């Protein structure tokens, strides 16, 4: 890729960023204001790093502009129009990725686009999902978590009554709130799983398996956290909920979830190598 092509690309990207200024600036504001989306700051950096690791391949891939990219570019712009007019920020933000794909294909061709495909696709994790989707998942997770927590604690001999999202102990009443569902960390864990799978797994099947497994691992990790919290509240009272234990429990739990994810990744890779007979 020569300097002239790069300059043209940067001019086009500048116009693109100007077009998407409203959509992207509100997204960055969401990262700043909403704790659950703060991982958004890291995603472009990771994407940039992934592109940087491919610099040798990028330099050696020929530039073959492809007019089909123009239709992808137009699709992205139509989605931006729809998202802007209908005040659907998610649609407007997703269209940014499509427009970038279209621009790269148009100016540099499909072969180079395939090199950039994963780093650009990874940017999807910086986009806050629609509120309606997040809330739907949280409502379902709340009840699931409450039920499983109550059942496990009952099996362990702790008297707990569950009604909806409420857990009644003899000495305390607890509510499984939206924050307790783990929905906040689920997206971050999936983003980590996708990156980890991409970097460590060789086959598409093993990558997909690891990403799919990350969801039950994340949910299980959060359920363990709830069980521990409610159990500790039974033994030590409601002061547990105001203590540092509850404050940092989530962080510790998140780290353990990442550890389980890493172990799952190693296991999947071993199985994949045995099946394919390929070892590094």
């Amino acid at each position, binding site marked *: 890729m020569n300097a002239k*092509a790069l300059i*043209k690309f940067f*001019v*086009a990207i500048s*116009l*693109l960023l*100007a*077009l998407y200024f409203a959509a992207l600036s*509100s997204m960055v504001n969401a990262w700043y204001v909403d704790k659950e989306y703060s991982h958004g700051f890291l995603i472009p950096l990771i994407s940039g790093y992934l592109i940087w690791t491919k610099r040798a391949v990028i330099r050696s891939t020929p*530039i073959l*502009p492809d*007019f089909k*990219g*123009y239709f992808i*570019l*137009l699709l992205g*712009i139509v989605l*931006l*129009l*729809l998202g*802007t*007019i*209908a*005040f*659907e*920020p998610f649609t407007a933000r997703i269209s940014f990725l499509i427009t970038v794909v279209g*621009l790269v294909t*148009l*100016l540099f061709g499909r072969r180079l686009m395939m090199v950039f495909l994963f780093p650009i696709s990874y940017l999807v994790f910086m986009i806050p999902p629609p*509120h*309606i989707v997040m*809330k*739907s998942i949280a*409502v379902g997770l*709340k*009840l699931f978590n409450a039920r499983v927590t109550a059942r496990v604690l009952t099996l362990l001999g702790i008297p707990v009554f569950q*009604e*909806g*999202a*409420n857990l*009644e102990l003899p000495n305390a*009443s607890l*509510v499984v*709130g*939206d924050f307790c569902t783990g929905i906040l960390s689920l997206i971050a864990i999936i983003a980590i799983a996708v990156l980890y799978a991409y970097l460590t797994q060789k086959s598409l099947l093993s990558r997909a398996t690891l990403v799919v497994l990350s969801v039950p691992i994340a949910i299980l990790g959060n359920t363990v956290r709830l069980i521990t919290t409610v159990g500790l509240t039974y033994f030590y009272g409601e002061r547990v909920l105001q203590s540092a234990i509850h404050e940092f429990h989530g962080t510790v739990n998140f780290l353990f979830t990442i550890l389980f994810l890493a172990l799952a990744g190693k296991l999947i890779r071993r199985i994949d190598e045995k099946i394919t007979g390929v070892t590094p």
Partner: protein
Amino acid sequence: MRKNDHYFILACITLLIAGIYIGSVSRESRVRLAVPLEYLPQEFGEFKGQDVSPLRIAFDEPTADVRVVRVYAGNGGNQPIYVFVGYWENQNEKKRIKSPRYVAEGWGYYWIKTRTLSQGSGKEMQVKEFLNERGDKKELVYYCYIIKGKIVVDEYRSRVLTMLNSLVYGKNNAALLRVALPVANDVSLDRVEQYGEAFIRDFLPLLSSHLPT
């Protein structure tokens, strides 16, 4: 000029035109009510109501341009009906209808269904229904959206309809009706449902006449 130069110029022109066009069409257009909501009858049929604070009904949508919060009761008198009506003259990222499904902290529900209510002379209307619970408190909740004279119960459909109205008419006004009936332990759910549905059958046409079509 080489192909790449042509495509580069084409891309730049397209992005510039898109920016100018999108900037010019993304203007909010407010649509006022046909009749102010405060003129919604406080008495109709067997029901009598009075305005109350949103705190009484544990539900509010403060982003609505106009809202009416009332408690109604029928001739029986023992079953209050908490009514929220919100109207948005326009919507944007900061100011838009949120579904009553996404209940307050501590509340939850196991089921949600679509109910079809007959209005007589072959007409029907649909509302969404769920039983909202918190501890031993229960309330039967009905809700629907009214967009350009149409009653819509599905959240995704309401979004699509809002998007289409924005594109075609340049407007995205909408209304939300939420009706909640507390369910006491000694009262059957069927009875509360019958009562709630009778109220909605009478109230919804009255509300629709206040909204712009």
